[in-house]
């Protein structure tokens, strides 16, 4: 019976939230429009646009070794820069590098997608039994698909050499063709590799040492970022309407009237909380689906705005709405009257959205980046982008879920306490 009563109170709230036309327009249409506009403005909506050639810099310092006639580093230079095979020409735009510092800056600036640094002792280390050479690969995480292509080519070459599966003949035939025709030294190297195979098998000879360079955030898939950012922000706005309706009920005496019915007082506040939560959840789900749909219409193809890990998405969703509901209730519980509650909520929630990165990423901004960790917006947004942009899974978002649920518990407790205090009579 108690639950039925709580449901009845909650239902009244939910019904009113979704039959108010102007609220609907604000809560649904605006976040959808804003995120689509930003998405279109920054481009990068789709994942299968024509791939540009990756700009790959190769800094070859390999001094070779007396034991081989050709330094292994030259294999990379040859394939990537000097004489790329036809199959690669569309994908790689190689460039020999002399100044490492400058090249790393170029990676950071996005002028280079990948920088491969082959150290002086590379060949020496590779051929020395039990050791192994190390390649440094610098890449810009924002480089997107071209960067991925370049890295996978370098990966592939390295694997081939490591497997010494007569690498230069089978694994990268183009390289071996070049070698056969132009440079017998490579043949010698291959021969050496074959010879040394037994010793090398004990250990992978070459380690790829990847160094990510902070990417320029503009290169984000912007809908994957602004979609969740806007959805969370407007979800909190919608929640605050529900929370402030407690103050409206007090002014209109509908709250007091509910208290004159033979129901414990918890029925009212419980019903309101359930109503607020359900409203937020519903709003969020509708927005998420709408964004997927709109992204497909506007950008043409299936953009995984929210990623594909359904369990992860649901976990972030339920926890970010819980934190949002709690937050909205706390703000309302401290407001003097509905009008003040409305304006304070809008202000606080907008600041929280701003800090949390709803309008612009703030992770790298000195103080804001730290402050943003206090907002549910940031934790929710990070959760969603971890799943979509970074291709993370449930495990990766557990910290976000934990923080959000922790916020929810704290906020709900504060709200119950404060409302309880106000309504004591």
């Amino acid at each position, binding site marked *: 019976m108690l639950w*039925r*009563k709580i449901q*009845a109170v909650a239902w*009244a709230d939910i*019904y009113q939230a979704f039959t108010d036309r102007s609220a609907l327009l604000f809560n649904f249409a605006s976040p959808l429009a804003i995120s689509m506009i930003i998405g279109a403005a920054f481009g990068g909506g789709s994942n299968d646009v024509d791939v540009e050639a990756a700009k790959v810099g190769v800094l070859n310092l390999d001094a070779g070794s007396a034991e081989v006639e050709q330094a292994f580093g030259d294999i990379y230079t040859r394939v990537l820069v000097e004489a790329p095979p036809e199959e690669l020409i569309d994908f790689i735009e190689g460039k020999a590098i002399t100044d490492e510092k400058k090249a790393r800056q170029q990676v950071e600036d996005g002028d280079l997608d990948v920088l491969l640094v082959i150290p002086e002792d590379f060949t020496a280390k590779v051929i020395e039994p039990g050791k192994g050479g190390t390649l440094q690969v610098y890449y810009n995480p924002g480089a997107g698909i071209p960067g991925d292509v370049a890295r996978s080519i370098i990966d592939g070459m390295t694997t081939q050499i490591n497997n010494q599966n007569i690498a230069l003949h089978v694994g990268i035939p183009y390289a071996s063709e070049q070698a056969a025709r132009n440079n017998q030294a490579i043949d010698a190297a291959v021969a050496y590799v074959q010879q040394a195979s037994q010793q090398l098998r004990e250990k992978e000879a070459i380690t790829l040492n990847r160094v990510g360079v902070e990417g320029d955030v503009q290169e984000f898939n912007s809908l994957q970022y602004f979609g969740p950012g806007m959805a969370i922000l407007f979800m909190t706005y919608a929640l605050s309407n529900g929370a402030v309706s407690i103050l409206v009920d007090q002014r209109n*005496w*509908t709250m007091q*009237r509910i*208290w004159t019915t033979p129901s414990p007082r918890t029925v009212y506040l419980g019903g309101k909380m359930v109503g607020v939560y359900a409203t937020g959840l519903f709003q969020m789900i509708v927005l998420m689906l709408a964004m997927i749909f709109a992204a497909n219409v506007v950008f043409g193809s299936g953009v995984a705005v929210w990623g594909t890990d359904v369990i992860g998405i649901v976990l972030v969703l339920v926890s970010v709405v819980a934190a949002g509901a709690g937050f909205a209730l706390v703000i309302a519980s401290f407001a003097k009257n509905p009008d003040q509650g409305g304006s304070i909520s809008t202000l606080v929630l907008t600041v929280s959205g701003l800090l949390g990165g709803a309008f612009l990423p703030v992770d790298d901004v000195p103080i804001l980046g730290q402050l943003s960790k206090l907002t549910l917006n940031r934790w929710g947004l990070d959760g969603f982008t971890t799943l979509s942009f970074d291709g993370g899974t449930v495990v990766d978002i557990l910290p976000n879920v934990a923080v959000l649920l922790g916020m929810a518990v704290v906020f709900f407790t504060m709200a119950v306490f404060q409302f309880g205090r106000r309504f004591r009579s």
Partner: protein
Amino acid sequence: MATFVKLDSLRKQYSPPDGPYAVGPKEGVNLEILEGEIFSLLGPNGAGKTTIISMMSGLLTPTAGDVVLGGFSITKQPLDVKKQIGVVPQDLALYPNLSARQNLNLFGTLYGLTGKNLSKRTDEVLEFIDLKDRANDKISEYSGGMKRRVNIGVGLMHRPKMLFLDEPTVAIDPQSRRNILDTVKELNQQGMTVLYTTHYMEEAQELSNRIGIIDHGQIIALGTLDELVKTVGEYDVIRLTLPEPPALVVERLGAIPNIQRAETTDGEVRLIARDGRQQLPEAIRIINEAGLALHGVEIEEPNLEAVFLQLTGRALRD
């Protein structure tokens, strides 16, 4: 008739900063309401009517004292009391964006009705408040009178033994007021005990079996209409329409033998007089002597207004 409600030394002390205002004298309000009667609390704004109703319905915790209703104490067994009462608040306590039916359903559920019982009772109440054909329209689209009817209807959902109505006719047209007064009488004829608060003496006069007059948080008179009017004795109220009378004139009018007191209220001088007709010539003579223009004269038989004026020296409507 048996006692249905007993207010026992009931008192509410509002604490600062909202103002140190107490409803109820030091010893508290003592009052009994009988089963099946219409009891009116008549008093001006701010007298304490809503405060008393709120304590009786469990919204406000009394600072002292208790209310026993149908054998249950509001402070110790609030849910048992609430099952027996329907409360019609002074404000329109309805969800404006829900329809009448949705409002009735919501509160019906909160009163413990479910399923068929709930929908059947909702239909009955809609019929009773004569809103069947508009049942599915939003409250916000209703006229003031219709809203008031729904406001009452919500309090009837669980067939309470007693109904509290807090100033249910404020700010509505005469026809809607008539409708509400008739509704209250009809409910009472069906056996419902009614507590009715108002600041209109005509309403209290028409409806009530017994009346309590309340002022500044205290019940200053209690009884049937006849009993109360008798306390003023043979006093009549002489109303002289006299814009801006000089204080001296009012003083001289009050000094006429057999006139108990003279009061000025907006453009009117009221004289409380034993055997009013006999005193009128002397009053008119004083006014003429002062060179004032008398616009009108009216003599009222003793009524609640006179009782209130007699007891407080003020008019009820202020």
